[in-house]
């Protein structure tokens, strides 16, 4: 293999790891002000983004291959994941900046953990071996477990963290068991190349694929947990509601991106030869997620919890794209990218409304927001409309794209279910909007002090709104570009 690429293939991870180490060392040695953290973290993320961009320009579509003995892939898929995850981590940090800055010296660890989570997420997307994928998964998940419980003054943050950890460890174990079974069936943990899993499955007729399929099922469970698809979603509402407001957005957005990146590569590229087996299962998971997420979101009275259930439904919509196999990967990226920005924006508003450290965000906090903070309310309205799939927002274009992919794959019933859920979903998104504009705060209700929005959060909201509108009005250029974001 091309020797000069060996280190460049993991260059984004190296950049982030360097930033993390530098951050922690500088913190211990000089005890600097908060802006120094921002400089180091920003430099690390910028370097990671730049290196991903370089990988994208130089190696998208080109059959560059794998490095480090088939451990890591350099392809459009991985590069795009970097281009998505690193800026997302940057936005997440801006959104959480007030929270991080309020944590005293612990803020440095907070930032380090966000950077590590981003590195882990990119590793998950770029991994070309199940062992690598598992390490990426653990790097990513462990960072999030700690972040979920970062503000320990509230007992439910601790609770969220612990529950996330326990169930996440459980899901990881199931995933690992799946890896073991797939290894037993194919004799390899590597995805590509001679003797890799894709190669083996493409060239071998397996008469009794029980072990392979059992492994496949468990892999699916493990990754479905990460993306909070029903019925593996139970953790999401508790964790989103318990975690400190400032960090929930990043938690939700990054988990979706990383989980779906891994899922897409494993299913379409590695197990593509067994598509007939997994596609129906994925379709059922998608339908279940859409229905369960929508139904339960309707009855919520807490906005963060509502967004959590809506994220379950969105996991279903994204899975809908995967039903089309390789052909749906571009559509999946489009939905994923736009949704990640929307959910980050929505939780940023929630953090501003109910407080950075608060867990809950009951609907009562939102009453009359349209008068108290018109810009916040407008941003939230746009995010909610986009999530609901109103035309001329990116959410609509994304839904059209994934539905189209599923129709092409012959899954009309799934699309009909999803469309009905979309219609029903409008009710709960609208409920928040109605509360913001038409309801007035109850007499004597203890509203949090008037929403304070930091510059970081304002920037995040501006970016989210711009992206939602631009890609809603002219989605095609991006969709076209994403056609190149295919796994090897």
């Amino acid at each position, binding site marked *: 293999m091309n020797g000069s690429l060996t280190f460049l293939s993991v260059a984004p991870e190296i950049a982030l790891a360097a930033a993390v180490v530098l951050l922690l060392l500088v913190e211990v040695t000089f005890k600097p002000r908060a802006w120094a953290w921002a400089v180091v973290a920003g430099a690390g993320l910028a370097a990671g983004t730049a290196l991903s961009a370089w990988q994208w320009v130089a190696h998208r579509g080109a059959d560059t291959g794998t490095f480090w003995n088939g451990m890591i892939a350099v392809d459009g898929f991985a590069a795009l994941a970097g281009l998505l995850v690193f800026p997302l981590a940057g936005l997440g940090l801006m959104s959480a900046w007030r929270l991080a800055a309020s944590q005293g010296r612990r803020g440095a660890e907070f930032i380090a953990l966000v950077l590590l989570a981003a590195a882990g997420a990119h590793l998950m997307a770029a991994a070309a071996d199940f062992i690598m994928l598992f390490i990426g998964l653990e790097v990513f998940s462990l960072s999030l477990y700690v972040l979920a419980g970062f503000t320990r003054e509230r*007992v*439910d943050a601790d*609770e969220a963290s612990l*529950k996330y950890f*326990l*169930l996440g460890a*459980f*899901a990881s174990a*199931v995933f690992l068991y799946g890896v073991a079974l797939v290894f037993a069936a194919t004799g390899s943990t590597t995805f590509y190349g001679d003797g890799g899993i894709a190669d083996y499955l493409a060239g071998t007729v397996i008469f*009794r*694929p*029980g072990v*392979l*399929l*059992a492994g*496949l*099922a*468990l892999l*699916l*469970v493990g990754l*479905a*947990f990460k993306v909070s698809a029903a019925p*593996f979603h*139970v*953790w999401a*509402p*508790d964790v989103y*509601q*318990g975690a400190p407001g400032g960090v929930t957005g990043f938690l939700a957005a990054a988990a979706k991106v990383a989980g779906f990146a891994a899922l897409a590569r494993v299913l379409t590229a590695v197990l593509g030869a067994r598509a007939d*087996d*997994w596609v*129906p*299962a994925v379709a*059922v998971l998608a339908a279940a997620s859409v229905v369960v997420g929508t*139904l*339960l979101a*309707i*009855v919520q009275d807490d906005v963060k919890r509502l967004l959590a259930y809506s994220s379950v439904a969105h996991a279903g919509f994204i899975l809908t794209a995967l039903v089309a196999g390789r052909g749906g990967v571009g559509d999946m990226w489009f939905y994923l990218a736009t949704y990640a920005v929307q959910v980050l924006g929505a939780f940023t508003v929630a953090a501003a409304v109910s407080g950075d450290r608060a867990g809950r965000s009951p609907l009562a906090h939102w009453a009359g927001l349209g008068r108290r903070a018109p810009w916040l309310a407008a941003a939230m309205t746009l995010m909610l409309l986009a999530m609901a799939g*109103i*035309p*001329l927002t990116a959410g609509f*274009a994304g839904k*059209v*794209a994934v*539905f*189209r992919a599923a*129709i092409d794959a012959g899954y*009309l019933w799934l*699309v*009909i279910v999803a*469309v*009905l859920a979309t*219609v029903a979903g*409008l009710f709960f998104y*609208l409920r928040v909007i*109605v509360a913001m504009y*038409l309801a007035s705060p109850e007499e004597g209700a203890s509203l949090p002090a008037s929403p304070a929005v930091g510059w970081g959060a304002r920037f995040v909201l501006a970016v989210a709104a711009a992206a939602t509108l631009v890609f809603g009005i*002219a*989605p*095609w250029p991006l969709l076209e570009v994403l056609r190149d974001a295919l796994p090897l």
Partner: protein
Amino acid sequence: MEAGEVMVSLLILLPLGGSALLLAFGRRLGEPAAGVLGTLTVGAAFVLAAVAGGDFLAGGAHATHIPWFDWLAPLGVRAGLLWDPLSALMALVVTGVGALIHLYSIGYMKADPGFGRFFAYMNLFVASMLILVLADGFALLFVGWELVGLCSYLLISFWFEKPVAAAAGKKAFVVNRVGDAGFLVALMLVFAAFGSLSYEEVLGRAAGELSTGMATAITLLLLMGAAGKSAQFPLYVWLPDAMEGPTPVSALIHAATMVTAGVFMVARTGVLFDLAPVSAAVVAAVGIGTALYAASIAVAQYDIKRVLAYSTISQLGYMFAGVGAGAYVAGMFHLTTHAFFKALLFLGAGAVIHALAGEQDLRRMGGLWRRLPVTTVTMVVAWLAISGIPPLAGFWSKDEILATLFARGGAWRAVWAVGLLTALLTAFYMSRLIFLALFGERRWAEGAHPHEAPKVMTVALGALAVLALAGGVVNTPWRPGLEHFLEPAFEGLDLAHLPSGATQWVLAALSVAAAAAGILLAAGAYLRARRPAEEGPTWELLRRGYGVDEAYARVFAAGGQAVARFTDEAVDQKGVDGLVNGLGVLVRTVGERLRPLQTGFVRQYGLGIVLGAVALLAWFLSRGGF
């Protein structure tokens, strides 16, 4: 882009731009500048439509496609406009009637704090409606469709401080969503069948490629959408409540334009309905059933605007019956004349309400003709028009629908008979309204000083009265101008035709007789010194609209909530919420009991994951065997 295309594009952009301007600067512009701006944009759009549509009158012009931009082009989703006689007619009606209503609103909304906002919404509404009618494919049609729904929500709950208005807006939105669900699924099916959403592709290829079953499925789902938007049974319940909005809104949205979207859509996709005779019959049945049903309810209403609302539903039913029977031209014709006289009726009612300082109850009006001469004259014109008295506009269009129904023979004769009965009822309830409101003894409160509306309002009334009076000339049996005009748009369709010769005269005489009978009955009952008692169980049933609203509230609202509650309680509260709520208490009771209970809950989650995993495993192993 040539001149014609620019004109048609401007048709939408003018009101849209006006709306944006008004939203941004409406408050600063103040009265009446904001209203003038709004009126001018719509008026200019009307002029453009008239100029651009003039070519069709000459008969030489072809339908033109105006591509706007490729929006998701490879998915077959393009944004473009289609300018043909059908869309031209609709555009003329929307902008013409719309401009007059804008003009009227300058007077009606005087001194309202939301003056600028009102015209911004109204302009947006006109723009949305134009997008809907000018779309060259289902995708853009749907965009307009949703925008129209949104605008109606905004305008119905314009006075959102009133809880009734806010609730009415929500109701309109929700009921429309029910229809939209069907509409969306229909679009999915269309896309699945043709791989495209443009009319050109879909309607052009339908005859060759679509199976009857698929056509029936698509059209029935389309009908569901149309029934939601055009307030047909069983999705009509939002329209009477929608009268909570300002009266010009009722005139514009809920009488003249928005509700016609469903009729227009059925006419536009006539090719598909042609392929599915069952659906066409269902359209006609729903239409004529709604017509009779709503007319009977209208007889017993006291709120002047509710009478008109039910009358709208009933008249829309006529149009549905017409297009369902293949009488597309007659349906569109009635749509046009109805827009004239119903807008006039609403604006006249608005003038009456305006004069009585907000009074809407017919029982507290009467004898107003002395005080409101202009309003009375124009209202009388509209009344005779809707009742079907020749030679006013309503007579020609209604008679054409009825005659076509009769001419198709067979079971359609029954539809015709119901239509005739409805015509009698229509004449009756409209006469009741006119007699109670304008004639007879005065019953309004002491101290009220009814006064004629300001000039801007009466000018609009007068213009509409002329249209209602003479609008029928565009399509008489002797000079079927509209039919020639619209012919290219319905090319290749199996159009129903009028009967000929003596039959036609007999039918016309019958419908005039029905109208006259209705008017005479009402005159006998309401022009006497003593008003009839109007009570008894039948009356009560009619007044409450057969109790359908209450039943809906009970069945759907409660049923839907029950489903949601069930999931909530069974799945969420015990499992998920129970944990969170219980946790606060639990954590504080530090002790031996804490740990086993807490792990118990997480175990429950774990169990959920395991069950899911087992289900997946079972699926995969059943696929692969061992």
